[in-house]
């Protein structure tokens, strides 16, 4: 295919975000591709590895201590999307820096570490410990602060709805991360997401990631009970795309900040819609779960795309495209 003429920037190129340059604009989303370790041995005729051409793998969110996560069932497919209630099961920061970062570094996987905590000070600690342990890592491009997990009892999402908290968490992490790109991942379960984005920018973020999951629910008609033990969970997948696109558009239009778009993206066409509204990169989540080559296929399609027919596009220019 040919790239559309209206693109305000060339999405095939690298991406500069704050102090870092990312090798590409097609990323995988946190929680949907593990820690970037599994899947390395998978093969598909006509494809390289699932990691080929990725701009970054955003690793599963890690917290100060390991967490066992929520009891199963943790996943439920609905007619047009998926509900999850993983509950931030993760190995904790210590094992992450000891066991995972070195392997990613050795394998040359560009990655963004996703971090979550419950207080600004904890975000600062996480950033400090990570920065100290991974200082020499060439493939560690950035940190994404997960300010929006709907599935933890501590109320990740409530917390991430408060602009003051968002600003403080970002500022606390920024202090220790002068050399990495810093993103705040925002929740769509809020009135104005642009207000949260602006708060993140005040805290020093280089950009924001939007969106985390919507709050969703399903009921098992045999029992009349919620399908997830914690009743409501995170809704993701194709059904989310129009909501994610609107939220990215809202942030770009109101703040002009660089936005990494995520929500319902499966194909290159989906990704182009996010570039059209001004996203600087995109992440693939649920689609990466159902096909380990999903993001690699989008990246390959983009890399293979021809130059736009006309350079003067009809589209609007993006405040944050470069």
């Amino acid at each position: 295919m040919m790239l559309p003429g209206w693109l305000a920037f060339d999405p095939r190129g690298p991406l500069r975000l704050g102090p870092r340059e990312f090798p590409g604009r097609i990323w995988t989303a946190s929680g949907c591709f593990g820690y970037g370790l599994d899947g390395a041995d998978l093969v598909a005729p006509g494809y390289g590895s699932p990691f080929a051409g990725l701009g970054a793998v955003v690793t599963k969110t890690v917290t100060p201590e390991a967490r066992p996560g929520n009891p199963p069932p943790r996943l439920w497919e609905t007619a047009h999307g998926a509900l999850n209630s993983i509950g931030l099961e993760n190995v904790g920061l210590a094992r992450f820096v000891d066991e995972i970062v070195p392997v990613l570094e050795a394998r040359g996987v560009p990655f963004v570490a996703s971090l979550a905590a419950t207080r600004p000070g904890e975000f600062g600690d996480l950033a400090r410990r990570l920065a100290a342990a991974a200082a020499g890592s060439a493939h560690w491009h950035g940190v994404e602060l997960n300010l929006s997990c709907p599935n933890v009892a501590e109320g990740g999402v409530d917390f991430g709805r408060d602009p003051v908290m968002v600003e403080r968490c970002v500022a606390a992490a920024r202090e220790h991360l002068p050399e990495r790109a810093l993103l705040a991942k925002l929740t769509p379960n809020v009135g104005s997401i642009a207000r949260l984005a602006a708060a993140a920018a005040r805290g020093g973020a280089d950009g924001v990631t939007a969106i985390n999951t919507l709050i969703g629910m399903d009921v098992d008609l045999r029992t009349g009970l919620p399908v997830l033990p914690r009743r409501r969970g995170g809704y993701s997948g194709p059904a989310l795309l129009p909501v994610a696109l609107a939220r990215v558009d809202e942030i770009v239009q109101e703040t002009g900040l660089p936005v990494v778009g995520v929500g319902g993206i499966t194909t290159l066409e989906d990704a182009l819609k996010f570039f059209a509204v001004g996203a600087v990169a995109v992440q693939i989540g649920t689609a990466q779960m159902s096909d380990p080559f999903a993001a690699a296929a989008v990246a390959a399609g983009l890399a293979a795309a021809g130059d736009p027919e006309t350079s003067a596009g009809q589209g609007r220019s993006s405040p944050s495209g470069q």
Partner: protein
Amino acid sequence: MTMPAAAPPPSARRLRGTIAADVPVSSSMRRLELELEEAVPFQPGQFCMLNLTGDLALVFGRPFSLLAKTGQRLSLLYKVVGRGTARLRDAGVGAPVTCLVPLGRPFPAPDPRPRLLLAGGVGLPPLLAWAERWDRPQDLRCAGGRDGDDLPWGLLSPAWRVSLDRPGAVPAGRLAFGGNVVELARSLLPAGSPAHVVLACGPLPLLRAAAVLAAERGWDCSVSVEERMGCGYGVCRGCVVPRAQDGGYATACKDGPVFDARGLDWARFGEGSGV
């Protein structure tokens, strides 16, 4: 003595293909044959994640145990139980599929000890594959069905002992035990019988009863669990089962689906509404 851990699984492939055949083998079970881009070796107990290519109504693949392979043709057995399996049946011969295969840890390879195979419902295919691959006279094969029509008699050699939850028609020349499959095993191997290594696959109550039987007798026991899956290849942590060791969880798709029964926390198993 605990069972040696199965070898780490060979790496999986994402293959495209089509449905080459789809025929009923019992009142509730169908045999599906997929013609894939490449031939894939597998071990009994491994599974595939199957997607109907381009079907926008399904978000995740569906896990199915691998039954047999001939060249690039892969067979499995399935029951229509919900949306995905109904669409699979309706897709019909020629429909394009995408398949991640082979996945998961298989049943442990044979050793001189006799096996007790306990299969229920859609737990039959991996144990059929086991019996086919290592056709050994010393192994005792038991398959349970809801009723006579439920079981794919044509696939069950006479070496298979059969139990039926509800009385029902049994084909001429065949025998069936009234009760569940673990009760059948208990009747065939009363207390004091020689040690068997149990391989169980089926719904949770069957696995639980198998684990109890093995624990009573001090036998080794491997169970293959059925959990809802998202990715099937270890990245989403959606398919977990409670681990005995530390109060944490193991993934059914990558750490399993076959587990040493002692490694699971049976008290916490199935707490949620489960599958």
